[in-house]
């Protein structure tokens, strides 16, 4: 039984990837025409290209967006938790990540086993960041450590979706 109704707590996003925070900025994520809500299902074939993310906020505020998968390679054994898919920094408020600096190129979801959660976390920057070093490898990423390293504080918005490997032949 869920003691909280917040979908981020129920889906254990808060806990596995980020800490409890108060959302201050609204972020809407669209893959094609599909609006991403917490816990919705997105097919990997629709997510090969980066989503359209619209962030509202002050245009002189800068934001950093991170997309990770805490269930790599499989939700029952997440030995590679987390797998980082996308990092964009210096996004001016009120725009989208194309206006920011892409630190790590977008990689679409490719879950090999099971149903994975893909989490998009938005942080507010204190000021414009300088050049950010790319993480050495995509595996064993830690969002909390990354935020601490760049002094980003708690996230301001988070959304997550589920994806699983599509069957080769279309069923039904």
């Amino acid at each position, binding site marked *: 039984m*869920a003691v909280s109704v917040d979908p981020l707590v*129920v*889906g*254990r996003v808060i806990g596995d990837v980020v800490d409890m925070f108060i959302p201050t900025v609204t972020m809407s994520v669209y893959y094609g025409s599909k609006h991403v809500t917490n*816990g*919705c*299902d997105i097919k990997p074939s629709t997510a090969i290209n980066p989503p359209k993310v619209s962030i509202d906020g002050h245009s002189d505020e800068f934001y950093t967006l991170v997309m990770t998968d805490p*269930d790599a390679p*499989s*939700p*029952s*054994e997440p030995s590679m938790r987390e797998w980082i898919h996308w990092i964009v920094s210096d996004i001016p408020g009120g725009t989208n990540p194309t206006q920011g600096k892409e630190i790590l190129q977008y990689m679409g979801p490719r879950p090999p*086993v*099971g*149903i994975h959660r893909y989490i998009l976390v938005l942080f507010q920057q204190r000021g414009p960041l300088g050049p950010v070093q790319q993480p050495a490898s995509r595996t064993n990423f830690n969002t909390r450590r990354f935020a601490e390293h760049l002094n980003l504080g708690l996230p301001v918005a988070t959304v997550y979706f*589920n994806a*699983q490997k599509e069957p080769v032949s279309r069923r*039904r």
Partner: protein
Amino acid sequence: MAMALAMTTDCASSRWSMASLKSALPPLASTASSIRYPCHRRRSSSKCPQLVRSFTGLSPVNPLHSLGSSVTQTLADLNSFEHNFTIIDNGFKVYAMRHGRRVPKLNRPPDQRRALLRCLTTQLLKYGRIKTTRARASAMRKYVDKMITLAKDGSLHKRRQALGFIYEKQIVHALFAEVQDRYGERNGGYTRIIRTLPRRGDNAPMAYIELV
């Protein structure tokens, strides 16, 4: 004797003395779980089939036995796959309605229901998170918890019991190997159910069930 049925013999209020009755009868065969009664007979004669199974052909069925001696006993339900899965049911009051019956039937006869739950727990232990209907997800919680409890015990007997339930043996061995690290401190509640949007084809309420 009769331990396979896991009866609790605190039937002090029964009209017959069970101990003397049982000692007088021929020794019972083990729980013949292969006897299947069609579902439409169960409601009308839920007491008689239970005892018929225990006396498998060695003594004639005496309806007096079933009427008087089962007031405070707990018998294995047709849904118990093995004797350590006994269900405490409604205390032998047979209602015309479903009052107090807590076993989920999942719209299937008992053998298919058993196979479905075995399959679902195997898949959950294999993939870590699966998406099914809400009724199936809440029905399978019990069996997943049982499997993890067997793995936490870790003895050979428990391993063989798990092998008899889960369809793939690699999963059993992997479970027994890693359960101490993952669930060593946790007491129960090894799964989580997250409700999600209904299925498009039939509007069935769906849920994710995952290992905590």
